[in-house]
């Protein structure tokens, strides 16, 4: 004679829900993958987890800047224009964060989308705000297109491994946000 306890267990054992759970477990087991294989071989793309597309651009100072030369450093890549109010609003914070973290290896690269801007305005803006980080000139907006920049400002946070770790579309970015992201990138550098 079965006890109420036995019948309670039987109602649980003959439960179709186990089939769904078993199917989910089986599918999860079948879709296992070697660690790292999802990340390996990713082409450069403007997306978190992908290597940042490389570029070479002239700078405002007259030299050239190649992104891949900055490998091993934490990079904040900011696309901006002098006519864009949020770009202008966040530049002082970018400068302060650059000054605070540059000794630890942070590089800020401000890519001016010069195809939509005027060089004299860029020069005046940089002088007025005393910006000391490199300002690269995207004369034909080729780099902005490669990074799929749809609105200004757009900022990419690139780790020492050359991989994009975060993207912030729009602005102005708060200084705390910049500090947070800079510290996170520099922590990767120390690993």
């Amino acid at each position: 004679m079965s006890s109420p306890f036995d019948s309670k267990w039987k109602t649980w054992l003959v439960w179709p829900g186990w089939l769904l759970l078993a199917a989910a477990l089986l599918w999860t087991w079948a879709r296992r993958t070697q660690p790292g294989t999802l990340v390996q071989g990713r082409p450069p793309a403007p997306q978190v987890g992908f290597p940042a597309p490389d570029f070479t651009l002239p700078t405002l100072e007259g030299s050239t800047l190649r992104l891949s030369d900055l490998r091993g450093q934490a990079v904040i890549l900011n696309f901006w224009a002098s006519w864009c109010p949020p770009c202008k609003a966040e530049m002082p914070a970018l400068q302060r964060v650059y000054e605070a973290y540059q000794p630890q290896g942070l590089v800020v690269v401000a890519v001016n989308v010069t195809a939509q801007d005027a060089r004299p305005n860029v020069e005046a803006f940089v002088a007025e705000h005393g910006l000391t980080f490199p300002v690269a000139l995207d004369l034909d907006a080729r780099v902005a297109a490669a990074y799929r920049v749809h609105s200004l400002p757009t900022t990419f946070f690139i780790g020492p491994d050359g991989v994009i770790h975060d993207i912030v579309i729009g602005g102005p970015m708060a200084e705390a946000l910049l500090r947070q992201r800079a510290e996170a990138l520099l922590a990767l550098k120390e690993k």
Partner: protein
Amino acid sequence: MLPVLPLGPLSLPVPGLLLILGLALGSWLAERAAPRLGLAAKDVSDILFYSVLAGLVGARVFMILRTPAAFAASPGSVFSLNPALLDPVGGVLTAVAVAAWLAQRRGVPWARLADALVPFFAVLQVALALRAAAQGDLFGLPTTRPWGVALWGAVRHPTQLYWAAGALAVLAVTWRWLARGEAAAWPPGMLFWRFVALSAAWFVFVAGFRGDSPVSAAGWRLDQVTGVLILALALVQWRRLSLARAARAA
């Protein structure tokens, strides 16, 4: 992928718009679901409004607690409108705590409230999937299937759209249970756990095609493992409530 919608001189952030739209539509549906479950629409609407508000504040507070030095160096950032300065987990925990507190104060049973909020969660799930599609997040593995989409240097499974389609189906099924009065006859909490079970099952399936899953050292996709654990919990609750209902009927 459509991160920004250009409208004349304006550039509207599509992911943010989808989220706001999801919150608004979800709240509207939850208000309509409440009377079908014997709850006052105003109670549900108030609880949702204050929980979402508290969730936003909580998300910022948790972010400040996580990185106090960054905010100490720039105290004005506490009031920044940057959504990137919100901690999603902290926000959800705060919202749930406030919802539970408000429900208790107004005498709304938690389990029934969870049932009434199912349309809200279901719509939000659709919005989150479409938001991922707009941003190009949660992208799929490369595929040769004809419905693959070109994204990030490869033709990939449109996992965000798989997720959105499933979430939409879950919304339709759960709304049907509500509209036909079936959910009102179930024990409190049953609709919620059914929703969680269906959503988790679909999520586990879709996550198998993702190209950006976090993977454990043993090769398990951690998003799938989390989904299976949630599915197990939801199925057990579903079964427990079914048995309790059968026992009462007997």
